[in-house]
């Protein structure tokens, strides 16, 4: 080796580096060109939010949650169990999820054709006395968090704060640290969110406007009650977009909704476990003036998941029921999850959730209940009235 090392003559050749660099440049150029072409061809406005969080979140985000939820729903709602299998199956489900079978109205388990109908069971009259209070619980469940909405910020689980304004889909300026200043950005009612818009950074400040939806700009007012879809077509950045069912515009919540003197905003988050009774009722005497259906992801909303992905409630499918009660503004927002992606509102037969054709995350459609009651300008509800429920899939 020593000999060879010493004796071998070293000859220097100019290797063609330039050709190598040119080849790589061309390769990169073709790749960019192909990507831009694919983007142009892809007319769908499917924009995926950027999910940022622990590794478990990335893992879950790669799953087709909505498709899995629809499959779960198809299995449980469309395939009836053989009669002999029903009782053991529902008893097993009740044992796992601690359902209380004494309280259900129809105790003949063989009469439930499938798990979907068992899941949507009703309770015996009188097993849930309605207490005489300003506010009662709308459903069986566990209190995750509650408190004051301090200038638009909501305390989420474990101290991570939302500011409710972005909760409605406002565009955000690049955030500094955990509280992102909300730009006054009016969201069209079928707003295709920018990729950044729903960037889900742990601890990001969310706001009420992301939860309830704000007043779209520039769209014409359409008068239509529940079920009559009106739509306005318009062109934006080469995309045909449709402003769906824009009926009545609530004013931008955070700016125009002035809380009355001596009042303030409160919030409360209630988690329904898989074994809980899944119909929900009116928590007080109020009038529902409109609903906003946000198509979205269907992450699990368990406390574990909420801790890992604190901005979850903004990403998930939800129906924001907005109205008023004797002290001012009142809203109730049922939020779907992977196993219960369907939200049913008894007085809104037109509502369909967890549909394949729904617009992607960051869009919502709005329907006014003005015609439900001319006098009150909305759907009147008394404390304890059944409003609807969550269904499997």
């Amino acid at each position, binding site marked *: 080796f020593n000999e060879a090392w010493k004796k071998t003559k070293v000859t220097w050749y100019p290797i063609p580096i330039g050709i190598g660099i040119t080849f790589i440049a061309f390769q990169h150029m073709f790749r960019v060109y192909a990507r831009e072409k694919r983007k142009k061809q892809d007319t769908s406005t499917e924009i995926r939010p950027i999910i940022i969080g622990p590794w478990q979140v990335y893992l879950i985000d790669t799953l087709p949650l909505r498709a899995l939820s629809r499959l779960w729903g198809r299995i449980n709602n469309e395939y009836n169990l053989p009669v002999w299998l029903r009782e053991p199956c529902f008893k097993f489900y009740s044992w796992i999820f601690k359902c209380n079978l004494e309280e259900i109205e129809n105790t003949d388990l063989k009469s439930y054709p499938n798990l979907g109908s068992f899941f949507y069971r009703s309770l015996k009259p009188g097993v849930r006395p309605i207490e005489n209070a300003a*506010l009662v619980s709308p459903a069986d469940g566990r209190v995750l968090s509650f408190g004051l909405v301090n200038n638009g910020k909501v305390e989420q689980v474990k101290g991570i704060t939302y500011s409710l304004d972005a909760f409605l889909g406002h565009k955000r300026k690049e955030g500094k640290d955990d509280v992102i200043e909300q730009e006054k950005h009016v969201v069209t009612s079928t707003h295709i969110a920018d990729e950044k818009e729903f960037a889900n950074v742990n601890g990001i400040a969310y706001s009420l406007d992301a939860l309830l939806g704000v007043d779209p700009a520039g769209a014409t007012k359409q008068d239509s009650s529940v079920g009559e879809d009106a739509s306005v077509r318009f062109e934006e950045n080469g995309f045909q977009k449709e402003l769906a069912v824009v009926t009545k515009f609530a004013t931008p919540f955070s700016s125009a909704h002035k809380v009355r003197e001596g009042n303030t905003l409160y919030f409360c988050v*209630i988690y329904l476990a898989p074994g809980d009774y899944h119909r929900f009722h009116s928590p007080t005497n109020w009038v529902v003036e409109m609903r906003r259906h946000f198509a979205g992801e269907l992450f699990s909303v368990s406390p574990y998941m909420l801790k890992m992905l604190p901005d979850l409630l903004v990403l998930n499918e939800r129906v924001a029921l907005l109205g008023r009660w004797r002290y001012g503004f009142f809203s109730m927002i049922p939020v779907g999850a992977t196993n219960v992606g369907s939200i049913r509102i008894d007085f809104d037969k037109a509502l369909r959730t967890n549909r394949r054709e729904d617009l992607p995350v960051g869009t919502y459609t709005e329907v006014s209940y003005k015609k439900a009651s001319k006098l009150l300008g909305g759907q009147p509800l008394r404390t304890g009235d059944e409003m609807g429920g969550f269904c499997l899939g």
Partner: protein
Amino acid sequence: STIVLVFEAPFEFRFCMKPGQKIKYGQKIGEI
């Protein structure tokens, strides 16, 4: 699934529950 309530109420409003508490529908969660 989850239900979020967001509402306006006077400063005297008080929640009568604790985080993590199990509740039933119809049970009092707040009073003024």
